[in-house]
């Protein structure tokens, strides 16, 4: 699985999930990622400040992790709105991050890829819970995709079944550090996480 030097988004090269499996997608014309072609240096730093402090998630929950990852993180105790990130958008065109919470099935794989392509750049993806990372307890089922990174590029992985809301907030903070290019924050997890 690679975002191959910024050229295209490729699905996994294993033959159990070939790219033709998911059918014809009329929206997908293989556009190059604009954020890798256009660099604005110092203006970028200012823009990243704005993007990092107001990440708007797409309201998209699949299964049990949605209750902990999306709903319980926004309840009065683990308040996500003190960070500025509680605005769930209903449509993909207005969202920044796609938090995939729950098991990805082969019937749902089509529209997940379609939603990812409808999102405007810059965009990120967070895989929440064991099922989205690698298939979880349902990995040897006939209808489950073993991990959402077979379909779309993932930036942050938050393990757990389901992860506590504290862990989800930690995942959001890592995503913010990745956007602002905050190496000191990410160095703390050296050996435990792959940066870049």
């Amino acid at each position, binding site marked *: 699985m690679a975002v191959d030097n910024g050229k295209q988004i490729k699905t996994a090269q294993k033959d159990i999930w070939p790219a033709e499996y998911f059918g014809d997608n009329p929206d997908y014309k293989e556009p190059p990622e604009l954020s890798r072609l256009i660099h604005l240096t110092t203006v970028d730093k200012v823009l990243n400040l704005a993007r990092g402090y107001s990440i708007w998630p797409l309201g998209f929950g699949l299964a049990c992790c*949605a209750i902990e990852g999306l709903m319980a993180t926004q309840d009065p105790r683990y308040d996500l709105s003190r960070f500025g990130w509680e605005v769930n958008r209903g449509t993909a065109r207005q969202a920044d991050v796609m938090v995939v919470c729950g098991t990805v099935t082969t019937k*749902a794989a089509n529209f997940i890829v379609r939603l990812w392509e409808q999102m405007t750049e810059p965009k990120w993806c967070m895989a929440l819970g064991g099922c989205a990372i690698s298939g979880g307890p349902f990995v040897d*089922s006939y209808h489950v995709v073993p991990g959402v990174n077979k379909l779309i590029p993932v930036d942050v992985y938050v393990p757990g079944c389901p992860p506590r809301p504290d862990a989800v907030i930690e995942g959001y903070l890592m995503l913010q550090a990745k956007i602002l290019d905050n190496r000191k924050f990410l160095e703390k997890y050296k050996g435990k996480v792959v940066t870049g």
Partner: protein
Amino acid sequence: MLKTQEYNLNLGPQHPSTHGVFRILLTLDGERVVKAEPIPGYLHRGVEKLAEARTYTQFIPYTDRLDYLAAMLQNWGYVMAVEKLMGIEVPERAEYMRVICGELSRLASHLIAIGTYSMDTGGVTGFELALRERETTMDLLEELTGSRMTLSYARIGGVAADAPEGWLDKVDKFMDKMPAYIDEYDGLIAGNEIFQARTMQVGVIKPETAISYSLSGPNLRGSGVNYDLRKAKPYSVYDRIDFDVPLGTNGDCYDRFYCRLQEMRQIVRILKQAVAQIKEVDGPVIGKVPKVLKPPKGEAYEEIESSKGIIGYYVVSDGSAKPYRIHVRRGSFINLGYLDELLRGVLLADVIAILGSLDIILGEVDC
């Protein structure tokens, strides 16, 4: 005259109010629904097929992930079916612990049902208030079982562990404060004019239709049919506990919602009695169970009353350590069988109100 044309609208898999990945293909004439086709299956994980590759105890965490909001009730139905197949007797203290943990799970599930229904009809404040109480419930469950949501607390023959020191007093104190919170939801959500205008006389289900289409849970009792498995076929220690079954009169969305609210008051009654009665019962929390479970050849079917309907488990064994066939009778799946007729001829905004009042959960619908 203006000529109109019908068009197809996808109340798609990604929608803030469909409680998960559920799709309804609507054919609309203006704002009125002409035909509705619900399409489930976007979360079908093949749990029944996975059961044939796991042992009986290894299947208990899978039952958690079906109805993840009331996880103890799912575990309970499964272990009751296996205990009936093997003829194991459960000690009394374990039955009381199952009742206490099960009613706390039911309370957590009804709180989310009320909160999300308030959010679906427009008022986000009700959602945040209901989740505040749910956090206290999940703290209690975490102290007992170690996990907030997917509990896996029931075992074949009893429960996993006894209550820690002082836990029962905490449950008692929480039940003293709960009626004031329920009155708050009653006034804020059910007493709201806009909420009442959106839910009264909408989505009416007659009692004969409800029985014929096998609806269960608050959907059946909202139409006035008195069928609660805890009273009709008492299992565990429910025959020693005194409580009422709330019924609706009209069978519309408001009645189904109000049944859930009244059921929360009954949960407070049940928990106070159970906590008082368990103090006199001492003993082990798990019965005599062999180390490797190999039930005799045969089959068993058991059902219990869960928060969303009737949960039943049909277990077939062929004498080995792994089950031959497990089927789950899911309440939410069968409650949705009536949806396409219920949605005929309503306005588009009523579709959301009706779907929210049925209180489905997609892990259970798709299995």
